[in-house]
């Protein structure tokens, strides 16, 4: 390294940088480590040090069906929102990058605008509109999958557009032009060249769309009904009244499943390169 001689002179600032890194990692990791630790307490009350440790809480999760049901709802909504946002977000980003048309810049801003509006504002506004629609059609819409997925599409699609646009800009256009010159129809260029080349961007987009939908609280809060509850909201409601090893165990199971999926995904596409 060329810089070693120069670096020797600023060990003080170097130390400061490492202190900051340590503090940052601590702040990010501490809540999760703590949750994992609490989930192993034997007592039902969180007191330090615990009287003993056990994994019994994990076995008891099944006795509380509301977490399981809400996990199912969360997964269902997130999967539909992810699929839907890919379906409309990828074509939109193709149009934004590969086509020239009037109003393109304004459209780009419009499609990303849901990211800049606070989630509670979106939630309340959709709620008010849906109530008007319920009064007009007399169909039960609040708490329906349709409304939840549509609302989640609004916050997942901008991420898909953002990541796919960034990905497309970085792609070499001459490969597509070569395919077209060799006689491939526009559709087969899209299907056999452009989309495969976008693979990393699409995977990143799907991943982010899923995260954004799965962990959303602010928007979802307004659109659930007592029977239909997403996992983050049922955990939130539980935590408002008590903190115990059971809810910690629920959270850990969720975390482990997601960590497993991420590691699997990382083998397929390097996450460090796409996010």
């Amino acid at each position, binding site marked *: 390294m060329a810089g070693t001689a120069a670096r020797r002179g600023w060990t003080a600032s170097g130390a400061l940088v490492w202190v900051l890194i340590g503090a940052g990692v601590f702040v990010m990791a501490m809540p999760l480590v703590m949750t994992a630790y609490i989930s192993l307490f034997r007592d039902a009350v969180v007191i330090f040090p615990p009287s003993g440790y056990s994994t019994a809480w994990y076995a008891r999760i099944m006795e509380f069906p509301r977490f399981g049901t809400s996990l199912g709802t969360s997964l269902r909504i997130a999967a539909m929102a992810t699929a839907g946002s890919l379906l409309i977000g990828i*074509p939109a980003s193709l149009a934004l990058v590969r086509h020239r048309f009037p109003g393109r810049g304004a459209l780009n801003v419009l499609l990303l605008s849901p990211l800049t509006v606070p989630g509670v504002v979106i939630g*309340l506004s959709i709620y008010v509109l849906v109530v008007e629609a319920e009064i007009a059609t007399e169909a039960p819409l609040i708490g329906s999958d349709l409304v939840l997925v549509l609302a989640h599409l609004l916050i997942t699609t901008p991420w898909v557009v953002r990541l796919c646009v960034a990905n497309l800009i970085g792609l070499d256009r001459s490969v597509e032009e070569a395919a077209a010159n060799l006689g491939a129809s526009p559709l087969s260029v899209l299907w056999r060249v452009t989309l495969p080349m976008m693979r990393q961007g699409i995977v990143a987009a799907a991943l982010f769309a899923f995260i954004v939908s799965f962990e959303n609280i602010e928007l979802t809060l307004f659109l659930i009904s007592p029977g239909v509850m997403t996992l983050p909201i049922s955990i939130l409601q539980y935590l408002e009244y008590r903190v115990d090893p059971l809810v910690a165990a629920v959270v850990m199971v969720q975390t482990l499943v997601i960590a497993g999926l991420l590691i699997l995904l990382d083998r397929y596409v390097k996450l460090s390169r796409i996010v």
Partner: protein
Amino acid sequence: MSARPRGLTAGLLVGPATLLVMGALVAPLLLLARTSLNRYDRTQFMVEALTPENYARFLVDPFYTGVLWTTLWIALLTTALCLLFGFPIAYRLARSQSRWKSAGVLLVILPLFIGSTVRALGWMGVLGRGGLLDSAAAALSPGSSVALLYTPFAVVLGILSINLPYMVLTLQSVIEGIDARVEEAADSLGADGPRRFLHVVLPLALPGIATGAVLVFILAMNAYATPLLLGGARFQMMAPMLFREYAVNNNWPFAAAIAFILMITTLTLTAASSAFVQRRYKAA
């Protein structure tokens, strides 16, 4: 594509997404704007009207403006802290050649997936009465207690731990886009670490810093679960207050007015910051 006019193809491609944003964002916001001008009545809930009184009520009452100020300073402070802690981590990750790099990135991504309630739960265990710190203090000097839960400190810590990964990931991708040779050049020209950072890395990373800062600022302005769980009953921020007006008081017109005040404050500040960065860029 040549068979059809190109504009039509583009329109078909971008149409569904545009319809979604118009139907699920623009239309509801227009309706909400109209709602915010209605009047609230205890018996009839919402009465059709055209009055600015909901906005006036917010702006005149020191309680509500106080909540807006609290939200603003918490959001600004956590954004600054995210930059302070996030930049070194992002820089190390971006410049790392080690095989642990992707493990490091995974460790940053993972907390993103777990949601804000989990982070709140962990901090409740650390800061709460009978929690880790409290018990440690009691063990060291019997009779003493440390109750940090339900304080602004707990809220700042909670929001920081949620927003930091977003900042790290945004900055990391920007720093990876900066050619490492530029830094080596500064190095060989005799710039020491702090100078290299201030005069080379920082200016080049400025657009990414602005993007990351705007992202975490919006997230903090919008925070719901963290102030609710870590701030306790007396600590107020805009999002929980808005939800309470809607769900507990059933006062939709006032909730709508709060929504617009929150949105306009957020948008004004983010627009101001991007205008500032753009001007710096043209000057540089």
